[in-house]
């Protein structure tokens, strides 16, 4: 029998070392999720009870953040008009990677009660990748919290890969965005 004492430890390949570091990073990332809340719709009313003493989101390490650069989650609640979709895309592209998107309510899934409006997009998934949906019109606070826990489990299982998908299928997303928004030539100090 070969002694285990003198056997060389198996050398890890670079991918394996990278994966180990990524798993350690995932532990920190899922325990400290900072949100940027894009609350244009009525589902935003479910967030105050989730944050204050009733459900206390902070015990999961989550909290609201002021700017897209600092945030990990982009929380999109309610319907998105075509005008605000452009701002959502700007915001999403400013966030630092890894970044996740949570769609709240039924409006980002299929348009909700505004599905036949001319000013509203129906499926958010066509324009930016969404990791977790919380369905309902409006979802109650338990399901909001449940959605966040689902996202944490997805990060642990490495299935929250929306930001990688956005990079890989960038042309497809850009094509959809242009189809919805149209090419607009902007005249301001940043785009001249």
């Amino acid at each position, binding site marked *: 029998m070969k002694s285990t004492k003198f056997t060389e430890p198996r050398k890890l390949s670079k991918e394996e070392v990278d994966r180990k570091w990524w798993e350690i990073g995932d532990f920190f990332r899922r325990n400290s999720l900072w949100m940027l809340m894009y609350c244009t719709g009525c589902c935003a009313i479910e967030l105050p009870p989730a944050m204050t003493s009733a459900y206390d989101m902070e015990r999961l*390490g989550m909290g609201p953040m002021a700017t897209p650069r600092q945030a990990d989650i982009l929380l999109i609640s309610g319907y998105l008009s075509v005008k605000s979709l452009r701002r959502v895309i700007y915001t999403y592209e400013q966030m630092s990677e890894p970044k996740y998107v949570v769609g709240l309510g039924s409006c980002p899934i299929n348009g909700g009660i505004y599905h036949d409006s001319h000013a509203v997009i129906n499926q958010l998934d066509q324009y930016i990748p969404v990791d977790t949906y919380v369905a309902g019109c409006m979802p109650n606070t338990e399901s909001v919290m449940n959605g966040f826990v689902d996202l944490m489990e997805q990060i642990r299982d490495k299935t929250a890969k929306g930001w990688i998908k956005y990079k890989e299928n960038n042309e497809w997303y850009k094509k959809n965005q242009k189809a919805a928004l149209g090419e607009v030539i902007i005249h301001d100090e940043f785009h001249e």
Partner: protein
Amino acid sequence: MLLNILVGFAIAFFGFVLQTSVAGVNRKIIARLQKRYGPKWYQEFLDIFKLLSKRATSHGWIFDFGVIMALGGIIATAMFMPLTNNIVAFAGYDNFFIFVYLIAVGMLGMAMSASGSGNPYASIGVMRALTTMLAYEVPFMIIVLTIINTTGFSSLTEIGLFQQASGNTWFLIALPLGGIVGILSLMGMLGKKPFETYIAPAEIASGPMVEYGGKQLGMLFIMHEITVFIEVSLFVHLFLGGAENIFIFLAKYFAVYTFVNLISNVNGRLKIDQVVKFYYKWPLIMAITQAIIAIYFGWVVSI
């Protein structure tokens, strides 16, 4: 000399670990105050390591260099900080004015880096931070100069030893008006609620930190924790009679930070002009009155 430098780094690292833990415990205390369960006590560590594990964008080399300058300047300042009467890295160099000068390096690094991002909110935040600094420094300096005049020393350990030698008469009690001014100035230094004009997340989107994300923000968080360690330790040594051993230091440190944090969390936020007016009115009057009483009349409360 090498040993001294190693001790200095150990003190800076100790300060980081101490302040990060105390801040985490304080988040729990504030949560209980608001009838919530609160995060884990090591949540601040998780936040910092998460930020260091993220990818970040850069806005030019001044943006990156300023962050490193801020962190390096603050670590250099913390190396001079005495923990107790005996644990001090560079004995004889723990002068009060060393901290006043060195802490400016870190602050200016952050100001430079924030202005380098080109975001108008960052410029507004830096301007407000410097204005607040201008406001609280004047009364604070008058009180500290009164203490230096009373004791005849400007070294932090000597001031601490003076208070312990005279029957443990803390300057918080011996100079009662000055103690109040000290607490108010400490709240301004830490950026606590009534004077939190330069962070103001709801108004100017967290001010100087608006463009930071990922690694740079993580480094700024480490810098912020060490800055808080320096400022609270200064208060402990100047007003609370220093510390004979490390446990007394920990107890005093925790008490001061928690007290300030409790006041902070039941207050709203003032506007920047209200902050300047406030500091130039009541704390300045109290500081000057205290200086006249202590220096010209020699009335110092003693137990």
